[in-house]
């Protein structure tokens, strides 16, 4: 039987382990990645010629990062590896690609596809978040890890989730001044979450270590902190905040405090990059824990579409360690479905470890509860869509005056989610505002549908590709701007 090579999208921990597993079983998969070097965001490698050690770059994760990098190097010549390549459209049996360096377009037929597209920060904005000097937590980390730069001299880090403390620790350790860590959750949340997290003591210990290190080194850490706004016209000059528990709104609220700073990093845990799964027709379901509609996958990482497997954070946030396991499991499922004999004991071991991680994630959600009161607090003049400057009040007006009750209707009425980022930065926030304004639970307002191209491509490429792809208004908007 002459089958085409399996295709993997994404060379982070999930994609690399999937590739390694397929190679170990005698296949030569195609591995497509937008970055120039393998590792994904979490284990992103600096450009060639940078000098810092892996210990300096990845800290406690150095061994993990090195493991993924080495696994990739070991199979590199056994892969059809395509770095700096964007998958901008996915259809049954066909992917549309663009080489990011030459902007050359191509198509790739697929029969089996492992989608490992990862995640970005979940953003809940505050007034002033579009000011130069305000970045996501992940972005702040990329600046340091990938470029050796801090986002500013005096940095405030805000939001919640494990990345908050990790970035604060990495920044302070690298010599940046961390003026404050503003955590929307509290120590009480963490204590309540302890029983669920004890199953993964190493991960728990790291979190405790970062917090202890920050306190020891005099970094102010405030909990139940609500960011009110960033001040400054063309640069960040200060950040205003107050004590308030947005996870359980209605309680006591503190007085406003102002911290002088020239940069801010913020984020509220992560959100999955689900666009390709969506274009491929995978079934989605609302996940209450992650407060998002996610593509459904079984324990073997099979999606609802035959031949499509979903590994890593791109189909629900499980973290990097789980992504490695999920990548391997997806590859083993693909092999199973081909009729290749695989190691059943290894399958059982992976599934058991993934179940333990799932229990830990439940604990993490409790440790860093979503700030449910965020939408009610968002002022009408808050810019929600940074691409097209669409404000919360415009979204609320569409609900009030036009009866919008669903995200794609809201998008059609206001253009929210239609700009260049395709809702990656505004989607979570717009969903919260719609649900709050309409008085509906967040699971009932739907999700933004994925649209090709999932990232901007030049119009010349679009036309020359000569494929029967309808130019969506997003594509036209990209190129008109």
């Amino acid at each position, binding site marked *: 039987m002459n089958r085409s090579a399996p295709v993997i999208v994404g060379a982070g921990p999930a994609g690399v382990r999937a590739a390694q597993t397929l190679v170990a079983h005698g296949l030569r998969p195609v591995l497509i990645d937008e970055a120039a070097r393998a590792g994904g965001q979490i284990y992103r490698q600096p450009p060639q010629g940078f000098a810092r050690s892996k210990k300096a770059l990845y800290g406690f994760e150095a061994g993990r990062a090195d493991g993924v990098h080495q696994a990739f190097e070991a199979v590199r010549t056994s892969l059809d590896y395509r770095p700096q390549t964007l998958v901008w459209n996915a259809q049954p049996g066909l992917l549309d690609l663009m080489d990011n360096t030459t902007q050359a377009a191509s198509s790739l037929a697929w029969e089996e596809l492992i989608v490992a597209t990862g995640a970005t920060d979940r953003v809940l904005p505050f007034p002033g978040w579009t000011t130069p000097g305000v970045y*996501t937590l992940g972005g702040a980390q990329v600046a340091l890890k990938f470029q050796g*730069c801090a*986002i*500013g001299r005096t940095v405030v880090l805000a939001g919640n989730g494990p990345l908050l403390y990790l970035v604060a620790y990495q920044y302070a350790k*690298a010599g940046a001044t961390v003026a404050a860590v503003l955590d929307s959750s509290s120590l009480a949340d963490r204590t309540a979450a302890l029983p669920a997290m004890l199953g993964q003591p190493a991960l728990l210990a790291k979190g405790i270590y970062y917090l202890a290190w920050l306190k020891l080194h005099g970094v102010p850490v405030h909990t139940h902190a609500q960011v009110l706004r960033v001040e400054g016209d063309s640069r960040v000059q200060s950040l205003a905040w107050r004590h308030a528990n947005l996870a359980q709104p209605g309680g006591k609220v503190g007085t406003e405090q102002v911290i002088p700073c020239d940069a801010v990093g913020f984020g509220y845990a992560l959100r999955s990059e689900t666009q390709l799964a969506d274009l491929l027709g995978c079934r989605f379901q609302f996940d209450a824990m992650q407060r998002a509609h996610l593509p459904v996958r079984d324990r073997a990482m099979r999606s609802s579409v035959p031949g499509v497997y979903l590994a890593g954070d791109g189909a629900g946030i499980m973290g990097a360690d789980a992504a490695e396991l999920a990548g391997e499991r997806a590859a083993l499922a693909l092999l199973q479905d081909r009729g290749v004999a695989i190691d059943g004991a290894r399958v059982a071991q992976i599934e058991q470890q993934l179940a333990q991680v799932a229990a830990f994630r439940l604990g993490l959600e409790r440790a860093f509860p979503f700030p449910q009161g965020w939408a009610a607090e968002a002022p009408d003049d808050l810019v929600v869509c940074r691409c097209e400057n669409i404000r919360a009040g415009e979204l609320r007006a569409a609900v009030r005056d036009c009866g919008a009750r669903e995200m794609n209707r809201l998008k059609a009425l206001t253009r929210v989610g239609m700009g260049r980022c395709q809702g990656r930065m505004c989607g979570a926030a717009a969903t919260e505002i719609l649900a709050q304004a309409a008085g509906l639970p967040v699971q009932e307002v739907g999700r933004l549908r994925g649209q090709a191209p999932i*990232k901007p491509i030049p119009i010349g490429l679009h036309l020359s590709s000569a494929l029967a792809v309808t130019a969506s208004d997003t594509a036209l908007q990209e190129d008109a701007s």
Partner: protein
Amino acid sequence: MSQSLQPQLVRLAEHERATVAFTLDGRAVTALEGDTVLTAVLTNAGSLRRNEFSGQPRAGFCMMGACQDCWIATADGERLRACSTFIRAGMHLLSGSGEGA
């Protein structure tokens, strides 16, 4: 120094690299080899572009090719995604915030 010329990013490590000369809004400046266009510009200035809708300056946001808020114009009329394009000697970049803008 005017606000727009004040750098946003601060180099904390990896100083030992060859310099790369380019121009920003007509001004001759330098970066280091391996810098992205974003790093090259924001270690020399405070922003990359202006938002088409608000007219306000922007300096990127996600740093990982997702937000699309770091596209910068070149003198040739090209647009580059600054966080995922490496700086090359002789690039002529326009942030829309320079003296001539």
